[in-house]
Protein backbone atom coordinates (compact mmCIF):
# COMPACT_ATOMS: atom_id res chain seq x y z
CA UNK A 1 0.00 0.00 0.00
CA UNK A 2 1.07 3.57 -0.67
CA UNK A 3 2.10 5.61 2.31
CA UNK A 4 -0.09 8.61 3.22
CA UNK A 5 2.63 10.90 1.91
CA UNK A 6 2.47 9.42 -1.56
CA UNK A 7 -1.32 9.30 -1.53
CA UNK A 8 -1.38 13.00 -0.72
CA UNK A 9 1.08 13.66 -3.53
CA UNK A 10 -1.03 11.71 -6.03
CA UNK A 11 -4.19 13.51 -4.90
CA UNK A 12 -2.46 16.86 -5.34
CA UNK A 13 -1.28 15.84 -8.79
CA UNK A 14 -4.88 14.92 -9.61
CA UNK A 15 -6.35 18.21 -8.40
CA UNK A 16 -3.65 20.14 -10.23
CA UNK A 17 -4.34 18.14 -13.39
CA UNK A 18 -7.95 19.28 -13.20
CA UNK A 19 -6.85 22.88 -12.68
CA UNK A 20 -4.24 22.78 -15.45
CA UNK A 21 -6.39 21.03 -18.05
CA UNK A 22 -9.31 23.41 -17.49
CA UNK A 23 -6.97 26.40 -17.74
CA UNK A 24 -5.48 24.80 -20.83
CA UNK A 25 -8.88 25.02 -22.51
CA UNK A 26 -8.82 28.79 -21.94
CA UNK A 27 -5.14 29.50 -22.66
CA UNK A 28 -3.93 26.64 -24.81
CA UNK A 29 -6.94 25.98 -27.01
CA UNK A 30 -8.70 29.34 -27.12
CA UNK A 31 -5.62 31.54 -26.72
CA UNK A 32 -7.11 33.73 -24.00
CA UNK A 33 -4.44 34.65 -21.46
CA UNK A 34 -6.26 34.23 -18.16
CA UNK A 35 -4.14 34.41 -15.02
CA UNK A 36 -6.89 34.28 -12.45
CA UNK A 37 -7.74 30.61 -12.48
CA UNK A 38 -7.23 30.38 -8.72
CA UNK A 39 -10.29 32.59 -8.30
CA UNK A 40 -12.53 29.82 -9.65
CA UNK A 41 -10.73 27.28 -7.50
CA UNK A 42 -11.37 29.34 -4.38
CA UNK A 43 -15.01 30.03 -5.27
CA UNK A 44 -15.52 26.30 -5.81
CA UNK A 45 -13.68 25.47 -2.59
CA UNK A 46 -15.62 27.90 -0.40
CA UNK A 47 -19.01 27.25 -1.99
CA UNK A 48 -18.75 23.49 -1.67
CA UNK A 49 -17.22 23.59 1.82
CA UNK A 50 -19.92 25.95 3.10
CA UNK A 51 -22.81 23.80 1.90
CA UNK A 52 -21.14 20.73 3.37
CA UNK A 53 -20.57 22.35 6.75
CA UNK A 54 -23.84 24.27 7.08
CA UNK A 55 -26.35 22.25 5.09
CA UNK A 56 -24.84 18.79 5.25
CA UNK A 57 -24.85 18.41 1.48
CA UNK A 58 -23.72 14.99 0.24
CA UNK A 59 -20.15 15.11 -1.08
CA UNK A 60 -20.98 14.83 -4.80
CA UNK A 61 -23.74 17.43 -4.51
CA UNK A 62 -21.46 19.90 -2.75
CA UNK A 63 -18.75 19.41 -5.38
CA UNK A 64 -21.31 20.07 -8.11
CA UNK A 65 -22.64 23.08 -6.25
CA UNK A 66 -19.15 24.55 -5.92
CA UNK A 67 -18.43 23.95 -9.60
CA UNK A 68 -21.72 25.56 -10.65
CA UNK A 69 -21.19 28.64 -8.50
CA UNK A 70 -17.71 28.97 -10.06
CA UNK A 71 -19.29 28.61 -13.52
CA UNK A 72 -21.77 31.36 -12.72
CA UNK A 73 -18.91 33.70 -11.81
CA UNK A 74 -16.95 32.55 -14.85
CA UNK A 75 -19.82 33.57 -17.11
CA UNK A 76 -20.41 36.84 -15.23
CA UNK A 77 -16.74 37.78 -15.45
CA UNK A 78 -16.23 36.37 -18.93
CA UNK A 79 -18.97 38.34 -20.66
CA UNK A 80 -17.46 41.79 -20.10
CA UNK A 81 -13.73 40.95 -19.90
CA UNK A 82 -13.40 38.62 -22.89
CA UNK A 83 -13.76 41.59 -25.20
CA UNK A 84 -10.26 42.45 -23.97
CA UNK A 85 -7.26 40.96 -25.71
CA UNK A 86 -3.93 39.52 -24.60
CA UNK A 87 -2.25 41.46 -21.82
CA UNK A 88 -5.40 43.41 -21.00
CA UNK A 89 -7.37 40.25 -20.38
CA UNK A 90 -4.51 38.98 -18.21
CA UNK A 91 -4.66 42.10 -16.03
CA UNK A 92 -8.47 41.93 -15.79
CA UNK A 93 -8.46 38.27 -14.71
CA UNK A 94 -5.65 38.98 -12.26
CA UNK A 95 -7.77 41.78 -10.81
CA UNK A 96 -10.76 39.48 -10.51
CA UNK A 97 -8.65 36.92 -8.68
CA UNK A 98 -7.51 39.54 -6.17
CA UNK A 99 -11.08 40.80 -5.63
CA UNK A 100 -12.26 37.26 -4.87
CA UNK A 101 -9.41 36.74 -2.44
CA UNK A 102 -10.09 40.00 -0.61
CA UNK A 103 -13.84 39.40 -0.45
CA UNK A 104 -13.27 35.98 1.14
CA UNK A 105 -10.75 37.58 3.47
CA UNK A 106 -13.40 39.96 4.77
CA UNK A 107 -16.56 37.89 4.86
CA UNK A 108 -17.71 36.50 8.21
CA UNK A 109 -19.14 33.33 6.76
CA UNK A 110 -15.76 32.33 5.28
CA UNK A 111 -13.94 32.88 8.54
CA UNK A 112 -11.86 35.70 7.08
CA UNK A 113 -8.11 35.36 7.29
CA UNK A 114 -8.40 32.65 9.95
CA UNK A 115 -9.82 30.42 7.25
CA UNK A 116 -12.60 27.90 7.16
CA UNK A 117 -12.08 24.95 9.47
CA UNK A 118 -13.81 21.71 10.19
CA UNK A 119 -14.60 20.65 6.65
CA UNK A 120 -15.14 16.89 6.70
CA UNK A 121 -12.49 14.89 4.88
CA UNK A 122 -14.30 13.33 1.97
CA UNK A 123 -11.87 13.51 -0.93
CA UNK A 124 -10.17 10.17 -1.45
CA UNK A 125 -7.74 8.87 -4.00
CA UNK A 126 -10.64 7.20 -5.79
CA UNK A 127 -12.80 10.35 -6.02
CA UNK A 128 -9.86 12.34 -7.35
CA UNK A 129 -9.02 9.75 -9.99
CA UNK A 130 -12.66 9.59 -11.09
CA UNK A 131 -12.88 13.40 -11.19
CA UNK A 132 -9.70 13.62 -13.28
CA UNK A 133 -11.01 11.05 -15.74
CA UNK A 134 -14.36 12.84 -16.06
CA UNK A 135 -12.62 16.19 -16.54
CA UNK A 136 -10.31 14.91 -19.25
CA UNK A 137 -13.12 13.02 -20.96
CA UNK A 138 -15.46 16.04 -21.06
CA UNK A 139 -12.74 18.50 -22.11
CA UNK A 140 -11.62 16.11 -24.83
CA UNK A 141 -15.16 15.83 -26.14
CA UNK A 142 -15.49 19.61 -26.21
CA UNK A 143 -12.16 20.08 -27.99
CA UNK A 144 -13.09 17.58 -30.69
CA UNK A 145 -16.53 19.08 -31.25
CA UNK A 146 -17.82 22.03 -33.23
CA UNK A 147 -17.25 24.20 -30.15
CA UNK A 148 -13.63 23.05 -29.99
CA UNK A 149 -13.05 23.93 -33.63
CA UNK A 150 -14.47 27.39 -33.00
CA UNK A 151 -12.19 27.84 -29.98
CA UNK A 152 -9.08 26.78 -31.90
CA UNK A 153 -10.03 29.11 -34.77
CA UNK A 154 -10.29 31.98 -32.29
CA UNK A 155 -6.82 31.15 -30.98
CA UNK A 156 -5.34 30.98 -34.46
CA UNK A 157 -6.84 34.24 -35.74
CA UNK A 158 -9.76 36.00 -34.15
CA UNK A 159 -10.60 38.24 -37.12
CA UNK A 160 -10.56 35.31 -39.50
CA UNK A 161 -12.70 33.31 -37.07
CA UNK A 162 -15.22 36.13 -37.05
CA UNK A 163 -15.34 36.24 -40.82
CA UNK A 164 -15.97 32.47 -40.86
CA UNK A 165 -19.25 33.20 -39.12
CA UNK A 166 -18.07 32.24 -35.64
CA UNK A 167 -19.71 34.23 -32.85
CA UNK A 168 -16.39 34.75 -31.09
CA UNK A 169 -17.72 36.39 -27.92
CA UNK A 170 -20.23 33.58 -27.39
CA UNK A 171 -17.64 30.84 -27.76
CA UNK A 172 -15.11 32.62 -25.57
CA UNK A 173 -17.68 32.98 -22.80
CA UNK A 174 -18.59 29.27 -23.12
CA UNK A 175 -14.92 28.35 -22.85
CA UNK A 176 -14.56 30.53 -19.76
CA UNK A 177 -17.65 28.95 -18.21
CA UNK A 178 -16.40 25.41 -18.80
CA UNK A 179 -12.94 26.33 -17.51
CA UNK A 180 -14.50 27.85 -14.39
CA UNK A 181 -16.67 24.77 -13.82
CA UNK A 182 -13.70 22.41 -13.65
CA UNK A 183 -11.65 25.00 -11.77
CA UNK A 184 -14.44 25.03 -9.18
CA UNK A 185 -14.49 21.23 -9.09
CA UNK A 186 -10.76 21.22 -8.36
CA UNK A 187 -11.38 23.70 -5.55
CA UNK A 188 -14.12 21.53 -4.01
CA UNK A 189 -11.84 18.48 -4.02
CA UNK A 190 -9.07 20.57 -2.49
CA UNK A 191 -11.30 21.84 0.36
CA UNK A 192 -12.58 18.36 1.24
CA UNK A 193 -9.08 16.94 1.26
CA UNK A 194 -7.18 19.45 3.39
CA UNK A 195 -10.26 20.15 5.55
CA UNK A 196 -9.09 23.71 5.95
CA UNK A 197 -9.03 26.54 3.45
CA UNK A 198 -7.97 30.16 3.65
CA UNK A 199 -8.16 32.92 1.05
CA UNK A 200 -4.39 33.17 0.67
CA UNK A 201 -4.14 29.57 -0.56
CA UNK A 202 -5.76 30.81 -3.78
CA UNK A 203 -3.80 33.95 -4.47
CA UNK A 204 -1.82 35.22 -7.39
CA UNK A 205 0.95 32.64 -6.96
CA UNK A 206 -1.57 29.82 -7.14
CA UNK A 207 -2.82 31.19 -10.49
CA UNK A 208 0.74 31.50 -11.76
CA UNK A 209 1.44 27.94 -10.72
CA UNK A 210 -1.49 26.75 -12.85
CA UNK A 211 -0.17 28.82 -15.72
CA UNK A 212 3.29 27.25 -15.32
CA UNK A 213 1.76 23.77 -15.48
CA UNK A 214 0.04 24.59 -18.75
CA UNK A 215 3.06 26.24 -20.33
CA UNK A 216 5.58 23.67 -19.10
CA UNK A 217 3.44 20.73 -20.17
CA UNK A 218 2.60 22.18 -23.54
CA UNK A 219 -0.25 24.47 -24.51
CA UNK A 220 -3.09 22.99 -26.43
CA UNK A 221 -2.30 19.42 -25.43
CA UNK A 222 -4.34 17.30 -23.03
CA UNK A 223 -1.37 15.17 -22.08
CA UNK A 224 0.67 18.33 -21.72
CA UNK A 225 -1.58 19.64 -18.96
CA UNK A 226 -1.33 16.32 -17.11
CA UNK A 227 2.44 16.13 -17.44
CA UNK A 228 2.84 19.78 -16.52
CA UNK A 229 0.69 19.33 -13.41
CA UNK A 230 2.63 16.22 -12.42
CA UNK A 231 6.00 17.84 -12.94
CA UNK A 232 5.22 21.09 -11.13
CA UNK A 233 3.63 19.23 -8.20
CA UNK A 234 6.19 16.47 -7.91
CA UNK A 235 9.53 18.14 -8.65
CA UNK A 236 9.74 20.17 -5.41
CA UNK A 237 8.76 17.05 -3.46
CA UNK A 238 11.28 14.80 -5.20
CA UNK A 239 13.99 17.37 -4.57
CA UNK A 240 13.47 16.83 -0.83
CA UNK A 241 15.52 13.67 -1.20
CA UNK A 242 18.64 15.53 -2.17
CA UNK A 243 19.98 15.20 1.35
CA UNK A 244 22.34 18.05 2.16
CA UNK A 245 21.15 20.00 -0.86
CA UNK A 246 17.48 19.86 0.12
CA UNK A 247 17.67 23.46 1.28
CA UNK A 248 18.31 24.49 -2.27
CA UNK A 249 15.38 22.60 -3.72
CA UNK A 250 13.28 25.68 -4.57
CA UNK A 251 16.30 27.20 -6.29
CA UNK A 252 16.82 24.06 -8.35
CA UNK A 253 13.12 23.91 -9.08
CA UNK A 254 13.16 27.49 -10.37
CA UNK A 255 16.24 26.78 -12.45
CA UNK A 256 14.57 23.75 -14.02
CA UNK A 257 11.62 25.94 -15.08
CA UNK A 258 13.86 28.59 -16.61
CA UNK A 259 16.00 26.03 -18.45
CA UNK A 260 12.93 24.21 -19.73
CA UNK A 261 11.48 27.40 -21.19
CA UNK A 262 14.77 28.19 -22.83
CA UNK A 263 15.28 24.75 -24.33
CA UNK A 264 11.70 23.75 -25.06
CA UNK A 265 9.56 26.88 -25.13
CA UNK A 266 6.65 24.96 -26.62
CA UNK A 267 6.48 22.81 -23.47
CA UNK A 268 7.24 19.14 -22.93
CA UNK A 269 4.47 18.15 -25.32
CA UNK A 270 3.48 20.93 -27.61
CA UNK A 271 3.53 21.63 -31.25
CA UNK A 272 5.69 24.09 -33.03
CA UNK A 273 5.65 25.07 -36.65
CA UNK A 274 9.26 25.82 -37.37
CA UNK A 275 12.26 27.36 -35.74
CA UNK A 276 11.54 30.87 -36.96
CA UNK A 277 8.04 31.01 -35.58
CA UNK A 278 7.60 32.16 -32.02
CA UNK A 279 5.31 29.89 -30.03
CA UNK A 280 2.88 31.08 -27.38
CA UNK A 281 5.15 29.50 -24.81
CA UNK A 282 8.00 31.67 -25.96
CA UNK A 283 5.89 34.80 -25.81
CA UNK A 284 4.82 33.90 -22.30
CA UNK A 285 8.40 33.17 -21.35
CA UNK A 286 9.45 36.59 -22.55
CA UNK A 287 6.59 38.14 -20.64
CA UNK A 288 7.18 36.35 -17.38
CA UNK A 289 10.93 35.95 -17.52
CA UNK A 290 11.46 39.14 -15.59
CA UNK A 291 9.06 38.12 -12.84
CA UNK A 292 10.91 35.03 -11.64
CA UNK A 293 8.33 32.29 -12.04
CA UNK A 294 10.53 29.96 -10.04
CA UNK A 295 10.55 31.51 -6.61
CA UNK A 296 6.95 31.00 -5.79
CA UNK A 297 6.49 28.78 -2.79
CA UNK A 298 9.23 30.38 -0.78
Amino acid at each position, binding site marked *: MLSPYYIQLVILVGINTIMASSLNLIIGYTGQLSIGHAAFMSIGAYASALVTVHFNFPFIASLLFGALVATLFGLLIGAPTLKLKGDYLAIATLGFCEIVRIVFLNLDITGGSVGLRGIPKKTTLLTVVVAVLITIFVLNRIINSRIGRALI*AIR*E*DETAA*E*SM*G*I*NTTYYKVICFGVGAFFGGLGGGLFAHFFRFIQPNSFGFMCSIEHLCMVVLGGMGSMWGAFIGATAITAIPELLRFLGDFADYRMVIYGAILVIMMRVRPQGIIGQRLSADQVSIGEKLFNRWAGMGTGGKRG
Partner: protein
Amino acid sequence: MLKVEGVSTFYGNIQALRQIQIKVKPGEIVTLIGANGVGKTTTLKTISGLIRASEGRVLFNGQDITAEPPHKIVEMGISQVPEGRCVFPRLSLRENLEMGAFIRQDKETIAQDVEQVFETFPQLKGRDRQLAGTLSGGEQQMLAMGRALMSKPKLLLLDEPSMGLAPMIVVEIFKIIEEINRQGTTILLVEQNAQLALKTAHRGYVMETGQVVLQGATDTLLNNDQVRRAYLGEG
Protein backbone atom coordinates in the same frame (compact mmCIF):
# COMPACT_ATOMS: atom_id res chain seq x y z
CA MET B 1 -27.86 42.76 -54.34
CA LEU B 2 -25.83 44.98 -52.01
CA LYS B 3 -26.69 48.59 -51.35
CA VAL B 4 -24.61 50.82 -49.12
CA GLU B 5 -26.69 53.91 -48.48
CA GLY B 6 -25.09 57.02 -47.05
CA VAL B 7 -22.90 55.12 -44.59
CA SER B 8 -20.61 57.01 -42.24
CA THR B 9 -18.24 55.22 -39.89
CA PHE B 10 -16.13 56.57 -37.05
CA TYR B 11 -13.06 55.30 -35.19
CA GLY B 12 -13.57 57.12 -31.92
CA ASN B 13 -13.77 60.75 -32.95
CA ILE B 14 -12.17 60.28 -36.34
CA GLN B 15 -14.55 59.97 -39.22
CA ALA B 16 -13.34 57.27 -41.59
CA LEU B 17 -16.27 57.13 -44.01
CA ARG B 18 -18.44 60.03 -45.19
CA GLN B 19 -21.82 59.18 -46.66
CA ILE B 20 -20.63 56.28 -48.79
CA GLN B 21 -22.98 55.10 -51.55
CA ILE B 22 -22.16 51.80 -53.24
CA LYS B 23 -24.27 49.37 -55.21
CA VAL B 24 -23.41 45.84 -56.30
CA LYS B 25 -25.65 43.98 -58.71
CA PRO B 26 -25.85 40.17 -58.87
CA GLY B 27 -23.12 38.60 -60.98
CA GLU B 28 -20.87 41.64 -60.99
CA ILE B 29 -17.30 42.24 -59.99
CA VAL B 30 -17.21 45.69 -58.46
CA THR B 31 -13.94 47.23 -57.38
CA LEU B 32 -13.16 49.88 -54.82
CA ILE B 33 -9.87 51.62 -55.54
CA GLY B 34 -7.99 54.41 -53.87
CA ALA B 35 -4.76 55.22 -52.03
CA ASN B 36 -3.76 54.03 -48.58
CA GLY B 37 -6.01 55.05 -45.73
CA VAL B 38 -8.96 56.41 -47.69
CA GLY B 39 -11.41 53.97 -46.11
CA LYS B 40 -11.58 51.03 -48.50
CA THR B 41 -11.01 48.40 -45.84
CA THR B 42 -13.30 50.26 -43.44
CA THR B 43 -16.04 50.09 -46.06
CA LEU B 44 -15.64 46.30 -46.31
CA LYS B 45 -15.55 45.88 -42.55
CA THR B 46 -18.68 47.98 -42.20
CA ILE B 47 -20.46 45.75 -44.71
CA SER B 48 -19.35 42.55 -42.99
CA GLY B 49 -20.31 43.91 -39.57
CA LEU B 50 -16.83 44.00 -38.02
CA ILE B 51 -17.28 47.76 -37.57
CA ARG B 52 -20.59 49.49 -36.91
CA ALA B 53 -21.84 52.26 -39.16
CA SER B 54 -22.96 55.29 -37.19
CA GLU B 55 -25.08 56.62 -40.00
CA GLY B 56 -26.74 55.18 -43.07
CA ARG B 57 -27.83 51.67 -43.98
CA VAL B 58 -26.39 48.54 -45.54
CA LEU B 59 -28.97 46.50 -47.44
CA PHE B 60 -28.34 42.95 -48.66
CA ASN B 61 -31.02 41.57 -50.97
CA GLY B 62 -33.40 44.16 -49.60
CA GLN B 63 -32.71 43.23 -45.97
CA ASP B 64 -31.23 45.79 -43.58
CA ILE B 65 -28.02 44.24 -42.20
CA THR B 66 -26.52 47.41 -40.69
CA ALA B 67 -26.95 46.26 -37.10
CA GLU B 68 -26.42 42.51 -37.59
CA PRO B 69 -23.38 40.86 -35.93
CA PRO B 70 -20.67 39.45 -38.27
CA HIS B 71 -21.67 35.79 -37.82
CA LYS B 72 -25.27 36.55 -38.86
CA ILE B 73 -24.03 38.37 -41.94
CA VAL B 74 -21.92 35.36 -42.95
CA GLU B 75 -25.02 33.19 -42.58
CA MET B 76 -26.91 35.51 -44.89
CA GLY B 77 -24.34 34.91 -47.60
CA ILE B 78 -21.60 37.53 -47.37
CA SER B 79 -18.11 36.16 -46.86
CA GLN B 80 -15.01 38.25 -46.38
CA VAL B 81 -11.36 37.47 -47.08
CA PRO B 82 -9.64 39.73 -44.58
CA GLU B 83 -6.68 41.91 -45.45
CA GLY B 84 -3.35 40.16 -44.97
CA ARG B 85 -4.94 36.77 -45.62
CA CYS B 86 -5.38 35.60 -42.00
CA VAL B 87 -5.22 31.85 -42.50
CA PHE B 88 -5.21 29.71 -39.35
CA PRO B 89 -1.45 29.05 -39.29
CA ARG B 90 -1.31 25.92 -37.15
CA LEU B 91 -4.24 24.19 -38.77
CA SER B 92 -3.78 22.08 -41.87
CA LEU B 93 -4.94 23.20 -45.26
CA ARG B 94 -7.96 20.92 -45.11
CA GLU B 95 -8.84 22.05 -41.59
CA ASN B 96 -8.70 25.65 -42.78
CA LEU B 97 -11.14 24.89 -45.55
CA GLU B 98 -13.41 22.98 -43.17
CA MET B 99 -13.43 25.98 -40.82
CA GLY B 100 -14.75 27.99 -43.75
CA ALA B 101 -17.81 25.76 -43.72
CA PHE B 102 -18.40 26.39 -40.00
CA ILE B 103 -21.91 27.78 -40.47
CA ARG B 104 -23.04 24.94 -42.72
CA GLN B 105 -25.02 21.94 -41.48
CA ASP B 106 -24.73 19.73 -44.59
CA LYS B 107 -21.74 17.58 -43.65
CA GLU B 108 -21.81 15.30 -46.71
CA THR B 109 -21.41 18.02 -49.30
CA ILE B 110 -18.61 19.80 -47.45
CA ALA B 111 -16.06 17.18 -48.54
CA GLN B 112 -17.26 17.64 -52.11
CA ASP B 113 -16.80 21.38 -51.86
CA VAL B 114 -13.27 20.94 -50.52
CA GLU B 115 -12.52 19.04 -53.73
CA GLN B 116 -14.15 21.85 -55.68
CA VAL B 117 -11.80 24.36 -54.04
CA PHE B 118 -8.84 22.19 -55.02
CA GLU B 119 -10.12 22.29 -58.61
CA THR B 120 -10.29 26.08 -58.51
CA PHE B 121 -6.85 26.35 -56.88
CA PRO B 122 -4.80 23.50 -58.37
CA GLN B 123 -1.69 24.74 -56.57
CA LEU B 124 -3.21 23.67 -53.23
CA LYS B 125 -4.13 20.20 -54.45
CA GLY B 126 -2.63 17.21 -52.69
CA ARG B 127 -1.35 19.29 -49.80
CA ASP B 128 -4.35 18.92 -47.47
CA ARG B 129 -2.24 17.97 -44.49
CA GLN B 130 0.30 20.76 -44.76
CA LEU B 131 0.06 23.44 -42.06
CA ALA B 132 -1.29 26.68 -43.48
CA GLY B 133 1.46 28.72 -41.80
CA THR B 134 4.05 26.99 -43.96
CA LEU B 135 2.46 28.04 -47.26
CA SER B 136 3.86 30.88 -49.36
CA GLY B 137 2.09 34.23 -49.39
CA GLY B 138 0.33 33.55 -52.67
CA GLU B 139 -0.77 30.12 -51.54
CA GLN B 140 -2.09 31.56 -48.29
CA GLN B 141 -4.12 34.08 -50.30
CA MET B 142 -5.51 31.24 -52.38
CA LEU B 143 -6.33 29.27 -49.24
CA ALA B 144 -8.04 32.28 -47.66
CA MET B 145 -10.15 32.73 -50.77
CA GLY B 146 -10.97 29.03 -50.94
CA ARG B 147 -11.88 29.09 -47.28
CA ALA B 148 -14.25 32.02 -47.83
CA LEU B 149 -15.89 30.13 -50.69
CA MET B 150 -16.58 27.19 -48.37
CA SER B 151 -19.45 29.10 -46.75
CA LYS B 152 -21.09 29.24 -50.20
CA PRO B 153 -21.35 33.02 -50.24
CA LYS B 154 -23.55 34.94 -52.63
CA LEU B 155 -21.28 37.93 -52.24
CA LEU B 156 -17.53 37.62 -51.71
CA LEU B 157 -15.63 40.55 -50.20
CA LEU B 158 -11.94 40.58 -51.12
CA ASP B 159 -9.64 42.91 -49.23
CA GLU B 160 -6.46 43.60 -51.20
CA PRO B 161 -5.73 40.13 -52.53
CA SER B 162 -2.55 41.43 -54.20
CA MET B 163 -0.97 42.69 -51.00
CA GLY B 164 2.67 41.68 -50.67
CA LEU B 165 2.63 39.20 -53.53
CA ALA B 166 4.92 38.85 -56.54
CA PRO B 167 3.46 40.36 -59.76
CA MET B 168 3.19 36.98 -61.47
CA ILE B 169 1.22 35.50 -58.61
CA VAL B 170 -1.02 38.57 -58.49
CA VAL B 171 -1.96 37.99 -62.13
CA GLU B 172 -2.76 34.38 -61.31
CA ILE B 173 -4.92 35.38 -58.33
CA PHE B 174 -6.87 37.81 -60.48
CA LYS B 175 -7.50 35.13 -63.08
CA ILE B 176 -8.96 32.98 -60.33
CA ILE B 177 -11.12 35.90 -59.15
CA GLU B 178 -12.60 36.11 -62.65
CA GLU B 179 -13.13 32.35 -62.63
CA ILE B 180 -14.94 32.45 -59.27
CA ASN B 181 -17.16 35.20 -60.65
CA ARG B 182 -17.91 33.19 -63.75
CA GLN B 183 -19.07 30.33 -61.54
CA GLY B 184 -21.72 32.63 -60.12
CA THR B 185 -20.30 34.47 -57.10
CA THR B 186 -20.70 38.23 -56.97
CA ILE B 187 -17.52 39.99 -55.89
CA LEU B 188 -16.68 43.28 -54.22
CA LEU B 189 -12.96 43.81 -54.60
CA VAL B 190 -10.87 46.33 -52.69
CA GLU B 191 -7.53 46.99 -54.37
CA GLN B 192 -4.57 49.32 -54.49
CA ASN B 193 -3.43 47.84 -57.77
CA ALA B 194 -5.87 50.01 -59.71
CA GLN B 195 -4.74 48.89 -63.14
CA LEU B 196 -5.40 45.22 -62.57
CA ALA B 197 -8.55 45.81 -60.54
CA LEU B 198 -10.11 48.01 -63.21
CA LYS B 199 -9.24 45.49 -65.91
CA THR B 200 -10.84 42.65 -63.93
CA ALA B 201 -13.97 44.35 -62.62
CA HIS B 202 -17.12 45.48 -64.41
CA ARG B 203 -17.68 48.65 -62.45
CA GLY B 204 -15.55 50.66 -60.10
CA TYR B 205 -15.65 53.25 -57.36
CA VAL B 206 -12.77 55.60 -56.63
CA MET B 207 -12.37 56.65 -53.01
CA GLU B 208 -10.57 59.65 -51.54
CA THR B 209 -10.50 60.59 -47.84
CA GLY B 210 -13.53 58.58 -46.87
CA GLN B 211 -15.68 59.56 -49.82
CA VAL B 212 -16.54 58.13 -53.19
CA VAL B 213 -15.30 60.69 -55.70
CA LEU B 214 -15.80 58.85 -58.97
CA GLN B 215 -17.75 55.86 -60.17
CA GLY B 216 -18.68 54.15 -63.37
CA ALA B 217 -17.96 51.32 -65.73
CA THR B 218 -14.33 50.27 -65.55
CA ASP B 219 -13.71 51.08 -69.24
CA THR B 220 -14.75 54.65 -68.58
CA LEU B 221 -12.64 54.87 -65.43
CA LEU B 222 -9.59 53.47 -67.25
CA ASN B 223 -9.89 56.31 -69.75
CA ASN B 224 -10.63 58.99 -67.18
CA ASP B 225 -7.77 61.52 -67.05
CA GLN B 226 -8.04 62.00 -63.32
CA VAL B 227 -7.83 58.27 -62.66
CA ARG B 228 -4.99 57.81 -65.12
CA ARG B 229 -2.94 60.51 -63.46
CA ALA B 230 -3.62 59.60 -59.85
CA TYR B 231 -3.74 55.80 -59.93
CA LEU B 232 -2.34 54.46 -63.14
CA GLY B 233 0.84 56.52 -63.13
CA GLU B 234 0.30 58.09 -66.49
CA GLY B 235 1.04 61.69 -67.44
